[in-house]
């Protein structure tokens, strides 16, 4: 019996997802829509922040959202109250969105009628990190009741994000979180990342987030021109 052959492969495990994500990103760019995904643990405030963002951006921009959950259409119903087009992706047992789910959900959407598309991932600080959805910006949220060390416990998701948002700022005093330490921990696992603080409840910090997203969109449009 002869020796087995060794075949060098060097292939990305998520090659197919990466390929789909690249083609989505190209589609988004051609349509001129900025796509922003939100990741966080369950209950960190993704849907509440998005409800507010959709409502406030809607007066000046054409906005829409996809929202992923294992089950129920509850979040889509909440987001639809903003008046923006919203579609729920139910993943069944899958703990994250992947590019093929986004592609399927967008099959019958005309993206060129949109300025911003938000994608709310399944609430999970581990699994979504590996899957590129073709988004332009990935926002990671951490809420003040979660404490200072979440970034150290879940470094990968913070490391794949472009912007970090500390939510539930109105509860900071009650939860005795040290915002300085939380910010340092985010920066330690993702050096150089911009960190915003806000409360979707009181509206504090919302203007800065909106301005950040809008200026990012304008910069991209300027580069594309």
């Amino acid at each position, binding site marked *: 019996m002869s020796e087995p*052959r*060794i*075949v060098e*492969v060097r292939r990305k495990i998520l*090659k*197919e*997802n990466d390929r789909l994500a690249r083609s989505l990103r190209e589609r988004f760019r051609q349509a001129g829509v900025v796509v922003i995904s939100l990741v966080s643990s369950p209950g960190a405030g993704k849907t509440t922040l998005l409800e507010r963002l959709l409502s406030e951006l809607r007066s000046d921009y054409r906005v829409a959202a996809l929202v992923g959950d294992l089950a129920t259409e509850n979040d889509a119903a909440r987001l639809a109250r903003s008046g923006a087009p919203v579609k729920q992706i139910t993943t069944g047992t899958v703990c994250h969105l992947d590019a093929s789910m986004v592609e399927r959900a967008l099959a019958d959407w005309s993206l060129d009628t949109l300025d911003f598309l938000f994608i709310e991932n399944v609430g999970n600080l*581990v699994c979504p990190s590996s899957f590129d959805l073709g988004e332009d910006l990935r926002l990671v949220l951490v809420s003040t009741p979660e404490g200072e060390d979440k970034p150290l416990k879940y470094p*990968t998701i913070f490391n794949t994000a472009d912007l970090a948002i500390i939510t539930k700022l109105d509860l900071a005093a009650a939860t005795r979180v040290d915002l300085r330490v939380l910010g340092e921990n985010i920066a*330690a696992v993702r050096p150089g990342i911009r960190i915003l603080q806000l409360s979707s409840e009181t509206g504090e910090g919302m203007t800065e987030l909106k301005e950040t997203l809008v200026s990012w969109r304008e910069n991209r449009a300027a580069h594309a021109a």
Partner: protein
Amino acid sequence: MHELSIALSIVDGVLEEAGRHGTGQVEVVYVRVGRLSGVDKDALLFSYRVACGDTPLVNSRLEIEDVEVVIYCSQCQGERTLRSFPLLICDDCGSAANRVVHGDELEISRLEIAA
């Protein structure tokens, strides 16, 4: 537990690659998994068995090679292996990493195919 999705992608990728190299039975699949990839080794090994199911890989074995995190430090002007994971801070000078050079790998590196 996204390791099952990862394992299913490994099986698809291996079957495609193996198809290009004849009809021999794949005996061992070597993958490289970076510490920063967020993939748990034991969960991946378990998921791989499930994902192989009734595919031609059912008798294959998965070998996982860990990849340490390597950062580029502009202070030291060089690459440094990270000992203080998950902190992306240079162990030598304490400054923040400018970029991750290695550690986010998730790749099929090679196959051992029966002759």
